[in-house]
């Protein structure tokens, strides 16, 4: 059988244990807790790979270190690593991460998404596209792309 997959045999890694975020020193339930790296990683770790029945965490497309956050400045940057250099699914992965963060984070947040330096053949073009909000807005009005993104964001494989 001829496979149309871009990466037929991806390496699958163990998922990291989920840490429960408790802050025993903070007893005031009305105090504002800053958004941190782990919280943002929790929002995106289970996004499903467009090609495989694994999460982006399991394929090490994303790790906790992929997330840089500055809550005071309302800024987050996610750097993901496609499994192969010529991954044509990188756009869908980037869009999925952006959509998940747009839905999860307060609207004051500025979000940058990029591929890890040296991890993709068309790195600069990809980064430019993923951070052009007009292109992103247009893509998210395209039913075919929205279907693919929704598929990546569906929690069904748990």
């Amino acid at each position, binding site marked *: 059988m001829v496979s149309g997959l871009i990466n037929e045999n991806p390496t699958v890694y163990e998922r990291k244990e989920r840490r429960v975020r408790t802050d025993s020193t903070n007893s005031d339930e009305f105090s504002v807790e800053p958004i941190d790296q782990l919280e943002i990683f929790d929002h995106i770790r289970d996004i499903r790979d467009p090609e495989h029945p694994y999460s982006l965490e399991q394929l090490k497309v994303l790790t906790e270190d992929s997330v840089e956050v500055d809550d005071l400045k309302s800024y987050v940057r996610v750097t993901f690593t496609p499994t192969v250099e010529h991954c044509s699914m990188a756009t869908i992965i980037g869009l999925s991460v952006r959509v998940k963060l747009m839905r999860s984070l307060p*609207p004051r947040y*500025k979000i940058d998404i990029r591929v890890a330096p040296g991890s993709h053949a068309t790195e600069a073009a990809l980064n*430019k596209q993923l951070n*052009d909000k*007009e*292109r992103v807005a*247009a893509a998210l*009005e395209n039913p075919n792309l929205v279907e693919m993104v929704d598929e990546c964001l569906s929690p069904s494989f748990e």
Partner: protein
Amino acid sequence: MDLMEKNMELIEVQKLEGHTDRVWNAAWNPVSPILASCSGDNTVRIWEQSSLSRSWSCKTVLEETHTRTVRSCSWSPSGKLLATASFDGTTAIWEDLGDEFECISTLEGHENEVKSVSWNASGSYLATCSRDKSVWIWEVLGGNEYDCASVLNGHTQDVKMVLWHPTMDVLFSCSYDNTIKVVWWSEDDDGDYQCVQTLDESTNGHSSTVWAISFNAAGDKMVTCSDDLTLKIWRADISMMHSGEGYAPWTHVCTLSGYHDRTIFSTHWSSDDIIASGAGDDAIGLFVESKQHDSVNGPSFNLLLKKEKAHEMDINSVQWSPSKENRLLASASDDGMVKIWQLETIP
């Protein structure tokens, strides 16, 4: 009058609520106290100022014509027609009938999202541009007929904005390919439009997507803004073109950098020479030319003021009102709001 010597403040006059998605663009009617805004909610809202209370309210919503985001809107010079460009691939022409707006024509031809539309100074031509990389020039024939006069395929990536020169039939376009192109129709040539100049990095141009263009009232200076976080000022000897001596090239005057730390999506040059900028850092910047003319470095522009947190999210459009009586600025944002600001002198 030297604005830099005065204490200026940008005062929020009114917040116009109604759009249910990000607002991409705002456009002042050139004749009447009317503002149009367009949005990701697929609608256009027409806001009108009450002559009694001076407050602004939504007069009508233009909907059920565009099926996707309405990216930009532009009034004809007479103020009677409004052109709207949409991600649905069409450009609609609306006529103001007094008590309502009627869609009198739909321009089809682009392969995908139309991003910008502009009328020339006399209202006899329209230009549109798209993600399909092309710029179309439409001739206004009368009787609600619009005919495609030319399709220009100069850009290598999607074209973000088109704008006609304020006094001459010269068309400017800017693109995701980081360039600005100047298109000129020369009578003595073979009667076709052609790109006469490309402003790119090699001519001190931008190093990333160019989002917007604006001209001063005289039309001899131009400002552009970009994803490279800069604004650039350009100038040309347009008297040479007016006297028919041929094309006068545009040259880089100066670069304003360090004022915004996210993409600058919009810039607009007011009739009294104040340049406004709106950016992804939620801030509005205002700039004026320095009166201390430096004979070595040429003209320079200084920050008049920066309004931080002008909106809660990205600012997509800043537009000065054409009204001479007061300095009104409209801004449109991802937060779904249109705001009207007044630039005032603080005693």
